[in-house]
C-alpha cells in the first residue's frame, strides 16, 4: 500500500504545486489498489472490448497500468454519425484505463458521470484519438462526496481537421483534478475546452490543461470559470505550447474566478510557450468578488440579495456551456448548477 502512495505526485513537482495529491491520500482510502468497475451505455453499433490500450508516460497513467493490465477499448468506425452518446457511469473508485478511437470523419458524443464514494480514490487514465476530420463532444459531470479524491487524465490526440468540444462541470471533492492534454498531431485542429467549477466547504478542484500544437492553422478556445466559497480552493493551470511549425495558430485562454469568502483560495497559472511567430495567442485571468454595482442594481429593482447573487453567479458560470450542442444535456448542467447555487446561501 505504501508503495502506491509513494508513486503519487506531490506539491514539490511544478505541475502539482497547488494540488498535493500525496499529502491527501492515506492507506485508508478505498479504491487505492482496486480496479474500477465502470458502467458503459453504448449506442447501437458500438461495442467495447478489452485490450492493451494506449501506453502512458505520466505517473498517474503508470499507476493505472499497474492495476489494470487491460484497458477498455472503444472504436467508432469511419464516418459513423451516432444518434446517441456513449455514457460512462459508476466511475466510483479504483483505477481505470480507457482508450477511444474515433476514426476518420466520424463523430461521437461522450458523457462521463464522475460520482464517487465516501473516502474513495479514483484514477482514470483516458486516451482518445480523433482521426482526420473526426469530432468529439465530451461532457464531464463531476459530483463527488466531499472527501473523495479523484484524478482524471485525458490525453486527446487530434489529427488533421479533427475537432473537440469539451465541457466540464466540477463540484470538487477532497481533491479533484481534471486534466486534459491535447496534442495537435495534424493541421487545422479545432478545439474548445471549457469548464466550470463551484466549490464550497473545503473542496478542491484543479482544472489543468496542456494544448500542444505541432502543425499550422489550429483554432483553440478555452474558457474556465469558477466560484469558490467557505474554505474551498480552485486551481487553474492552462498551457498553450505552440511549436515552430504551428504557424497561424489562433488560441485564446481565459480563466475567471469569483471568491465569495475570505477563507477561499484561487490559484491560477495561465501559461504560453510560443515558438511560432505568425500566431495570435492570448490569455486572460481575472479574480474578484461579485460586482457590487450589479448587485445593487438588481436589488434596486426588487430582487432580494441572495437571489441576485445566485442569478449573477449562474449567469457567470453557465456561459461556458453556451455552445454545448446537446441541449438537453446543457439544460441538465445548468439545472445542477442552479440547484447548488441556491443551496449555497
Amino acid at each position, binding site marked *: 500500500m505504501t508503495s502506491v502512495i509513494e508513486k503519487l505526485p506531490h506539491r514539490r513537482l511544478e505541475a502539482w504545486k497547488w494540488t498535493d495529491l500525496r499529502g491527501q491520500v492515506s492507506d485508508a482510502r478505498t479504491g487505492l489498489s482496486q480496479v474500477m468497475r465502470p458502467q458503459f451505455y453504448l449506442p447501437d453499433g458500438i461495442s467495447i472490448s478489452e485490450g492493451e490500450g494506449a501506453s502512458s508516460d505520466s505517473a498517474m497513467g503508470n499507476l493505472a497500468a499497474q492495476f489494470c493490465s487491460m484497458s477498455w477499448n472503444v472504436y467508432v468506425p469511419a464516418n459513423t454519425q451516432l444518434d446517441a452518446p456513449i455514457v460512462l457511469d459508476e466511475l466510483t473508485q479504483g483505477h481505470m484505463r480507457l482508450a477511444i478511437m474515433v476514426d476518420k470523419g466520424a463523430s461521437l458524443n461522450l458523457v462521463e458521470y464522475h460520482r464517487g464514494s465516501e473516502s474513495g480514490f479514483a484514477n482514470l487514465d483516458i486516451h482518445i484519438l480523433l482521426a482526420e476530420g473526426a469530432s468529439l463532444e465530451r461532457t464531464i459531470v463531476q459530483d463527488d462526496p466531499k472527501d473523495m479524491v479523484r484524478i482524471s487524465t485525458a490525453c486527446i490526440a487530434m489529427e488533421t481537421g479533427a475537432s473537440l468540444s469539451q465541457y466540464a462541470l466540477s463540484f470538487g471533492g477532497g481533491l479533484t483534478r481534471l486534466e486534459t492534454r491535447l496534442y495537435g498531431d495534424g493541421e487545422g485542429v479545432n478545439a474548445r475546452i471549457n469548464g466550470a467549477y463551484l466549490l464550497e466547504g473545503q473542496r478542491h478542484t484543479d482544472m489543468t490543461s496542456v494544448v500542444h500544437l505541432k502543425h499550422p492553422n489550429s483554432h483553440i478556445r478555452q474558457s474556465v470559470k469558477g466560484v469558490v466559497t467557505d474554505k474551498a480552493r480552485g486551481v487553474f493551470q492552462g498551457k498553450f505550447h505552440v511549436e515552430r511549425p504551428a504557424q497561424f495558430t489562433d488560441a485564446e485562454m481565459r480563466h475567471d474566478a469569483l471568491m465569495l469568502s475570505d477563507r477561499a483560495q484561487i490559484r491560477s497559472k495561465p501559461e504560453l510557450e510560443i515558438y511560432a511567430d505568425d*500566431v495570435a495567442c492570448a490569455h486572460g*485571468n481575472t479574480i*474578484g468578488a461579485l460586482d457590487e454595482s450589479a448587485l445593487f442594481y438588481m436589488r434596486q429593482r426588487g430582487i432580494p440579495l441572495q437571489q441576485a447573487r445566485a442569478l449573477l453567479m449562474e449567469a457567470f458560470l453557465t456561459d461556458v456551456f453556451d455552445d454545448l450542442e446537446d441541449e438537453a444535456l446543457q439544460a441538465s448542467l445548468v439545472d445542477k448548477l442552479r440547484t447548488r447555487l441556491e443551496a449555497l446561501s
Partner: protein
Amino acid sequence: MSGETRVKDGIERETVEGVRALEAEKYKYGFDSDIEQEFAPKGLNEDIVRFISAKKEEPEWLLEWRLEAYRRWLTLEEPSWAKVDYPEIDFQDMYYYASPVKKEGPKSLDEVDPEILEVYNKLGISLKEQEVLAGVEGAPKVAVDAVFDSVSVVTTFKEELAKHGVIFCSFSEAVKDHPELVRKYMGSVVPVTDNYYATLNNAVFSDGSFVYIPPGVRCPMELSTYFRMNAQGTGQFERTLIIADKGSYVSYLEGCTAPMRDENQLHAAIVEIIVHDDAEVKYSTVQNWWPGDSEGKGGVYNFVTKRADCRGKNAKVSWTQVETGSAVTWKYPSCILRGDNSQGEFYSIAITNGFQQADTGTKMVHLGKNTRSRVISKGISAGRSNSTYRGLVSAHRKAEGARNFTQCDSLLIGDLCGAHTVPYIESDTPTAQFEHEATTSKLSDDQLFYCRQRGLSEEESVALLVNGFCRDVLQELPMEFAVEAQKLVAISLEGSVG
C-alpha cells in the same frame, strides 16, 4: 553617446536616426579598457572571502556576515526552474575581486584615473561633464556613482546632496561612515539565504551604491549608478541599498555595460529598497551588458535579485527596466506591499536577439490593505533568442481591497525565437481584484508595409513599430534614459529582419 545624441528630439526621428547612425556598431560598449587592475586570486573559498573583506577594511561583523553567507551558499543548489539554458558555471574559475590600482580612494574627479574617465566617456557618461553641467542653467543634474568592476570609483555631486541630508555614496563608504544604517537595513529585504545567487552575493559582494533620503526630502536630482564590468574573467557582485525615509522621494537610474569577451562573465547583484510611510522610489534600469556574439559565444550571465519593501503606509515603488543585454538574464524586481495603501509598479521591456535568453518578470506580494500594483511587460524576441515573462501576483488573506492589473505582451520577430509567459496568480481574499491579460503576436505586415511605403527601410520600420509596441513602458522612463532606451531598442534588433 556624445552631446548631440542628448538632443531630446521627436521620438520617431531619434529612433530612425539612431538606427542609421549606429549602423555598423552592434555593441558599441564592447571596447576593452587597458587599465591596471588588482585582482584577488581566482576561485572561491573562505580565504578569498576574508581577502575581499580585508581589502575593503571591513569591520568584523561584516566579515562574519560574509563567511556565514559563504558557508550557507555551499549547501545550496543552483536553481533550474527558469527557462534558461547555459553550461554549468565553474565558480572556481573566476575572479571575485578586481579593482583599478589606486592606493587611496579618489577624493574628487581630478584624482580619478583618466583612463577610467575615458571609459565612462565612451559609455556616454561623462562624469566631468556632469559636474560642469551643474553650473549651466537648465541643464538636468544627475548625480552619478560609477562602479568599475568591483569598486566604486567616484560619486559626483556629493556635497550638494549632503546639503539636503541625502546620502549617496559607495556601499563601502557607507559601511565606514554610516554603519548604523547599513546594519539596520542590509539584508532586511533580501535575506542572506534568499536564493543561490543572492547568498553568493552576500559572501563576495564588492561594492555598489548606498542611498539614504531623510524624512520629507525630495531628492533634488536624479541619482544614478553606472556599472562597468571590465576585467577579464571577473564576476561582478555589487549591492545597492536604497532607503527612502518617511515622505521622501528619489528617482534612481542604473546603467550597465561590459566589454565583448569570448567567455561568459557573471553578474550577481542585489538591490534592496526600503520605502517608509508616504515615501516614493522610482528605480529605472537600462541593462545593456554584453549579450554575446552572433554565434552565442560569450556574454554576461545576469542573475540579479532586486526587491523593494513598501514598509510604510502609502509607500510607493516603481521599477522600470529596459533589458537588452546579457546572454542570460534571470531577474525579477519585486515589490512587497506591506504598508496599507502602498503601491508597486513594474514596467519592463525585454528585448532578446541572437542567442540571448531572458527569464524576467516581477513579484507583487500584497500584504497590506488597499494595496495596488500594476505590471506592464513587453517582451520582444528576435533571432534565435528566448524571452520569458515569469511573474507572481499574490494577495494575503488580510490584503483587503488589493488590486492588480497585469498586461504582458510578447512580440516574435522571425521564426527561430520563442516568447513565453508564465504568470502565477494567487488570491486568498475575496475583496482582491486581479486582472491579467497577455498576448503573443507578430508585427503587423500591414503596418510594416505602410512604413516602408513611406520610405523607411525594413529595419527602420521594425525599430519604429517596436518602439510603438513598447510605448507604455518607454514613457515611464526618466527623460535622460528614454532617448537612450529607444536607441537601444533599435540597436538590439539590428539584423533581426531579412
